[in-house]
C-alpha cells in the first residue's frame, strides 16, 4: 500500500513538473511558425524580431522539457515493472515510435532553429521551425495514443505463456494477481490500438490545451510590455498574434471538451460520474457548477443546473447519466466476484470508484479556468475591436492588461488539473477495466528507494523551476532587441516595409 502510494506520488510529481514545459513548446512552436511565416510573407522586420525573441523563450522551455522528459521514458520500468511486462507488447511501440519519429525530428531541426540563423537561408530556417513544431505535435500524438490506450484499451487480446508457448485467453478473462507472472496483453490490430476510442478526442483536447499554454504565455508577456509601455511595436504585434491564437484555441477547446466528455460518458462512466459527483442515477441529471463532494452522505454541495448533464451527455434531458451507486454494473460484479450476493454489491462497488472528491475538484477547476480564459479572451477581443486594447490611458484597459498578464497561469492550472482528473479518474485501474494500479508496481522496488528518488527529484526540480522562472524573468526584462544589424544580407533582402508605428 505504502509503496503503491509512493510510486504514484513520485510518478505524478515527475510527470506533472515535466508537463509544465512541453505544452509551452508545442504552443510556442506553433506560434513561431506563424511569426516566421508572416515575416517571410510580409517582409516586416517586426515579425523577424518576434520570431527571434520568442525563439529564445522557446529554447528555455524546450531545454527543461527535454531534461525532465528523459525521466519519463524510464519511469515505466523503474516504478511500474509489472505493468511494463504486462503491456510492453502494446505500450512500448508507441513510446519507441515517439522516439524515432518525433524526438529525432524535433532535436535535429531544433539545432537549425536555434543556431542556424546565420548558417542557412530564411526559407530553410522556416522549414526547420515547421519541423520542430511538427515534431512537438507528433510527440504529443504518440504519448496521447499510449495514454489513451490505458483509458480505453482496444486492438489487443490477453495471452498466457505456458511452457514458453502463448495460449490465447478469452476476451472476458479476469486478470488476477496470480496471473501477473504468466499473462500479458498483446497487440491484435496496431491501428485499432492507435485509434482506440478515446485517442482522437483526447489528442485534440491535449493539443488545444498546449496551444492555449503557448498563446497565453505570448499574451501575458506582450500585455506586460504594453502595460509598461516598453517595446511597443513589438508588444502590440505580439499581443495581436497571441490573442488571435488564444481566441481560436479557447473556442475550439470548448468544442473539444464537449466531445471528450461525451466520450468519457460512453467509455468510462465511473470516471464521468466521479468528475461530476453523480451518485444517484436519475433523469434530468443536473450539472454542478462548483462545490464539493460530501462523500459520507454521497451528495454534492453547490449550485446545480437541472438536466444540463443529461443534455450534454446524451442530447436529451430525460436520459439519466449513470450514478456511482449503479457503477460498476451488476454483470461486471458478478463476473469479478462469483460468490458475492447482490446485497454485497453496494459495498463491493466502492472498491472500483476513484477518489470522487478529488476527481470532482480537479475536473471542475479545469472547467472553471477554461471558461474563465474564454471569457477573458472574448473581452480582450472586444477591446481590440473597439480599439481600446492598447489605450493604456483607460483604467479598464489597464485592468484588462493586468488580467492578461496573469492569464498565463490559467492554461497551466487547467492542463494540470485536467490530467489529474483524467489519471485519478481512471483509478483503481492503470489500464481501465483490465489491470489495477496496485498490481502494476515494480515488485523489487522498496519504499525507501522511492522516497530517496522522490526527495532527489523534488530538490532538482525545485532548482530547475526556480532557474526557469529566474531566466524567463531576465529574458523578459531584457526584452526583444533590434536584431536587424545581426541579420545576414540574404535576410535583409527580405525587408519590404517599415515597421508599423
Amino acid at each position, binding site marked *: 500500500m505504502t509503496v503503491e502510494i509512493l510510486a504514484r506520488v513520485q510518478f505524478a510529481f515527475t510527470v506533472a513538473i515535466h508537463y509544465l514545459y512541453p505544452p509551452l513548446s508545442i504552443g510556442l512552436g506553433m506560434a513561431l511558425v506563424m511569426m516566421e511565416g508572416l515575416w517571410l510573407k510580409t517582409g516586416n522586420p517586426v515579425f523577424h524580431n518576434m520570431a527571434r525573441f520568442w525563439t529564445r523563450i522557446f529554447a528555455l522551455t524546450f531545454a527543461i522539457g527535454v531534461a525532465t522528459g528523459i525521466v519519463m521514458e524510464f519511469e515505466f*520500468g523503474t516504478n511500474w515493472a509489472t505493468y511494463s511486462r504486462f503491456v510492453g507488447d502494446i505500450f512500448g*511501440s508507441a513510446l519507441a515510435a515517439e522516439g524515432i519519429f518525433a524526438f529525432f525530428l524535433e532535436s535535429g531541426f531544433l539545432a537549425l532553429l536555434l543556431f542556424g540563423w546565420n548558417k542557412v537561408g530564411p526559407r530553410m530556417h522556416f522549414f526547420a521551425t515547421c519541423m520542430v513544431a511538427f515534431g512537438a505535435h507528433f510527440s504529443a500524438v504518440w504519448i496521447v495514443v499510449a495514454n489513451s490506450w490505458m483509458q480505453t484499451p482496444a486492438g489487443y487480446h490477453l495471452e498466457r505463456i505456458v511452457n514458453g508457448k502463448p495460449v490465447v485467453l478469452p476476451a472476458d478473462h479476469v486478470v488476477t494477481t496470480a496471473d501477473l507472472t504468466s499473462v500479458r496483453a498483446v*497487440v491484435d490490430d496496431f491501428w485499432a490500438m492507435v485509434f482506440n476510442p478515446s485517442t482522437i478526442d483526447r489528442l485534440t483536447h491535449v493539443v488545444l490545451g498546449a496551444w492555449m499554454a503557448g498563446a497565453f504565455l505570448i499574451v501575458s508577456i506582450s500585455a506586460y510590455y504594453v502595460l509598461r509601455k516598453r517595446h511597443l511595436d513589438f508588444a502590440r504585434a505580439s499581443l495581436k498574434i497571441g490573442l488571435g491564437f488564444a481566441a481560436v484555441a479557447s473556442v475550439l477547446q470548448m468544442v473539444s471538451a464537449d466531445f471528450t466528455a461525451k466520450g468519457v460518458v460512453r467509455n468510462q462512466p465511473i470516471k464521468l460520474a466521479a468528475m461530476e459527483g453523480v451518485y444517484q442515477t436519475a433523469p434530468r441529471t443536473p450539472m454542478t457548477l462548483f462545490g464539493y463532494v460530501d462523500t459520507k452522505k454521497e451528495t454534492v454541495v453547490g449550485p446545480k443546473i437541472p438536466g444540463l448533464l443529461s443534455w450534454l451527455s446524451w442530447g436529451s434531458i430525460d436520459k439519466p447519466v449513470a450514478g456511482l451507486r449503479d457503477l460498476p454494473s451488476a454483470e461486471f460484479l458478478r463476473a469479478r466476484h462469483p460468490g458475492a450476493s447482490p446485497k454485497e454489491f453496494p459495498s463491493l462497488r466502492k472498491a472500483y470508484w476513484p477518489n470522487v472528491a478529488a476527481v470532482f475538484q480537479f475536473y471542475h477547476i479545469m472547467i472553471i479556468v477554461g471558461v474563465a480564459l474564454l471569457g477573458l479572451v472574448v473581452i480582450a477581443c472586444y477591446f481590440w475591436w473597439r480599439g481600446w486594447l492598447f489605450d493604456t490611458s483607460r483604467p479598464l484597459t489597464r485592468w484588462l492588461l493586468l488580467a492578461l498578464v496573469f492569464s498565463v497561469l490559467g492554461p497551466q492550472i487547467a492542463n494540470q488539473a485536467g490530467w489529474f482528473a483524467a489519471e485519478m479518474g481512471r483509478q483503481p485501474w492503470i489500464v481501465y477495466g483490465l489491470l489495477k494500479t496496485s498490481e502494476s508496481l515494480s515488485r523489487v522496488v522498496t519504499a525507501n528507494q522511492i522516497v530517496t528518488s522522490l526527495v532527489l527529484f523534488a530538490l532538482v526540480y525545485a532548482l530547475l523551476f526556480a532557474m526557469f522562472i529566474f531566466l524567463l524573468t531576465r529574458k523578459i526584462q531584457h526584452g526583444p532587441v533590434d536584431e536587424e544589424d545581426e541579420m545576414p544580407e540574404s535576410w535583409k533582402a527580405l525587408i519590404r516595409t517599415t515597421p508599423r508605428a
Partner: protein
Amino acid sequence: MILPDLNLIWFVLVGVLFTGYAMLDGFDLGVGVLQLFVRKDEHRRLFLNSIGPVWDGNEVWLVTGGGALFAAFPEAYATVFSGFYLPFMLLLCSLIFRAVAIEFRSKEEWTWWRQFWDVAFSLGSLVAALLIGVAMGNIVRGIPLDADHEFAGTFLGLLNPYSLLMGITTVLLFAMHGAIYLAMKTEGELLEIVRGWIPRLIGLFLISYLLFNVYTLVDVPWVLETVRARPHVLFVVAANVLIVLNIPREIHKGRPFYAFLSSCTAMALMMATFGLTYFPNMVLSSPVPANSLTIINAASTQKTLGIMLVIAIIGVPLVLAYTASIYWVFRGKTSLTKHSY
C-alpha cells in the same frame, strides 16, 4: 519463404541504438568530463558550443534505445530498470544537470553562476558516463535474477569492483572520444591544449581497457567459455585492438577526423564483441543462468516485433538523413556568436 528472425533483428537494432548513443552522446559526455580542465571562460564556451547544436539529438539515441527495448524486450526493460532503480535515478539526475547546465551556463555573466553550471555540466557528464559503464558492467557480469526474472540483488551489489572498473573505463573512453572530437572543433591556443591531452587520455584509456579485459577473463568465466565455442569472435577482437591502436596513429599524423572515426568504430566493435558473446541473452542471470532473460523469453510477440520493424524501416533512414544534414550544416571549427551558449 524464409521468415526473418525478428528476435535477432531486434537484438541487433537495440544494440545499434545504444551503440549510436555511445558514439554520439559519448563525445558530449567526454567534453563535459573535460570542461573543468580548461580555465578561460572563452574556452569553456567553445567547449559547450562545440556540442551545442548536436547534444540534444545525440541524447535521443538513448531515449529511443530505451523505447525500443521497452517495445521489443519488455521483460528486459522491466527487470533492468526496476532492478537498477537507484543508479538509474542518479543517472537521470546527472543527465538533467548536464542538459540544463548547457542551456543555463552562459545566460548570466556572474563568475559564481558560470562556475556552478560548469561544475554541474562536468559532474553530470562524469557521473552519467560512470553509471552507464557500471550498468553495462553488471549486465556483462550477470546479475542475480529469480525464477520470475525479477532482480534479486542489492544496490551495493551493483557497485562491485568489476562494474566500477567498467565505469572508469567508460569515463576514460568517452573523455578520449570527446577530446578527439574537440580536436576537430577547436583551433589555435585551445587546440594546442586539447592536443596535449589526447596522448595521455589514450594512454589512460588503454591501461584501463587492458585491465578491464584481464579482469573479465578472470572474473567472468562465461566469457572465456563462449569465446572457445565461438572462436570467430576473436576476429572482431583483433579488429578492435587494431582500430584502437590506430587512434594514436591518426592523432600523430594530425588527422583528428580519422581518429574520431576510429574511436567510433572501436565503440561499435566493442559492442559487437559484447553482442556476439552475449547472444542470445538479454540479461544474464548469475549465479543461476537458467533464470536469464533471452531474446526469446524477454521478447514481445512476433506481431509487435514485425510492426516495430516497419516503424524502424521508415524511421531510421529519416533519422540518419537529418542527423547527417545537421552535422554537415554545423561542420568545421566552432566559433562564438551572439546566439552561442
